[in-house]
């Protein structure tokens, strides 16, 4: 294992200066996520327009570098995409963290794929996987308008 694989510069940078932080105006969906293992918390605000496009996507919360970076990267990549593509990206990311080697979503360009793959170092650190996936599960929950808080101990 190599710490630099986990804490790539891009992660540290996102961790320190997360993008899309705060509560966006007129969000249409929102959800809360919680990782009881670390106490990490995240709240996702999603604004879908009537064409089912992600017009805005922001978050509030606190957590470790991995969790903050993952959330920040997620908002950056999903913002502006259609709902359908957003769902694809989420699935793609979760699969990548579990086992697959690469990101397949065609709608992401190579730069974006590199950004998302910067989170792949987490695979080597099983206890940290939930830090990386919390936000993504919470976004799914927001999309599905689930009332219950996402709990990393409850999702597979």
């Amino acid at each position, binding site marked *: 294992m190599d710490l630099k694989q986990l804490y790539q510069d891009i992660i540290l940078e996102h961790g320190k200066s997360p993008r899309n932080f705060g509560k966006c105006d007129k969000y249409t969906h929102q959800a809360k996520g919680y990782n*009881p*293992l670390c106490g990490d918390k995240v709240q996702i605000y999603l604004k879908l327009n009537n064409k089912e496009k992600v017009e805005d996507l922001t978050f509030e919360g606190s957590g470790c570098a991995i969790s903050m970076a993952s959330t920040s990267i997620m908002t950056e990549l999903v913002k502006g995409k259609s709902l359908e593509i957003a769902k694809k990206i989420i699935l793609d990311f979760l699969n990548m963290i579990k086992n697959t080697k690469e990101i397949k979503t065609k709608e992401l360009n190579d730069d974006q794929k590199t950004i998302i793959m910067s989170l792949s170092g987490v695979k080597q650190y099983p*206890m940290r996987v939930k830090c990386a996936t919390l936000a993504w599960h919470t976004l799914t929950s927001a999309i599905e308008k689930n009332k219950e808080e996402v709990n990393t101990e*409850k999702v597979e």
Partner: protein
Amino acid sequence: MDINKVKSQFPILTKKINGKSLVYLDSSNSAQKPISVLNSLDSFYKNEFSNIGRSIHSLAVNATNKFEETRESVKKFINANSKDEIIFTKNATESINLVATTFGQQNIKKGDEILISELEHHSNYVPWHYLRETKGAIIKFAPINEDGDIIIDELKKLITPKTKIIAVTHLSNVTGTIVPVKEIVEIAKKKNIPVLIDGCQSAPHIKIDVKDLDCDFYAISCHKVYGPTGVGILYAKKKWLESLPPYIGGGGMISEVKKDRITYAPLPEKYEAGTMPTAEVVAFNESIKFMNSIGIENIVKHEQQLTNYALEKLKKINSVKIIGNPKNKAGVISFIIEGVHPHDISTIVDEEGVAIRAGHHCCQILHDRLNLSATARASIGVYNTKEDIDILCKAVENCRKVFELK
């Protein structure tokens, strides 16, 4: 199944007791442990020990994984639907208390009825008695016949609209009766009554399939299944574990804790408060592997042969009387000798290295029913041999000699 190969895995069985080779016939009380289980315990403590769950350093991650591997093995062993249905407790007694307490808290009101049987171990009676004391519940006992079988027709008659739960043993630790629990579950299901099965004696000796049984709760003690002391299991259908209140409260079973409110962890942690018997749970995986390596069918066959052999031989001894003659009987053989008290029997056979139990075996209701204050009990494990039975029978003969019986 090569009995010598099986037996050689149990270090204690080469030991001498009072100068004689140990003949261990007290497995219903607690089973001996194969070397693989002991090696796992020792090696885990020496090389890998850490508390599980909450730390994220390498030792803790590894320990947590091993702990969860056992849960997965148990799930397969009893054919549960999900790992979330497997709760680790300290023993079967705690498993049953967990159900009685939480189910009682939610579902038992004054006048409600709890149906158990005359075969039950105190561990499947006292927890329900508490609900009688605290809630005014009524406990009914399904009667047994002279053979030691539950009279199913009588059990049916005892079911009323007030019956809230049925709790029965799968295998009697006195008569060896294998109870038709599947039939009982079917009867109960027609009236929507949940069923708890005390699987303490069955888990090591007959095939268990909770999906097939379709029972709501199933309690197991790992130390009887060739595992370490200090661990028990509660299987429960997810719907129950999700809807019942938590039991023991403390670290590990919470989600969010505030000064004015507390929310609980998802399954299975909701029911696993405080530091678990970590090393013991990890080692129990080896017990399951041991059972699987022989195969439950082979275990059943071997023990059945031995039981029949023992019954035949014991019956031939003058003044020996076997207690119970159930339709299906496993390797639990309680007996008395006219003119020799069970405690005297135990002392005398012990002199020959034979470990059996004397007393009421935590079944006073059953002993009252049979009009006995105590019995002697020889119980068979997978490691027992025909010679063990021969030595037992010789030692039983010796009781007659010491007491100068004709």
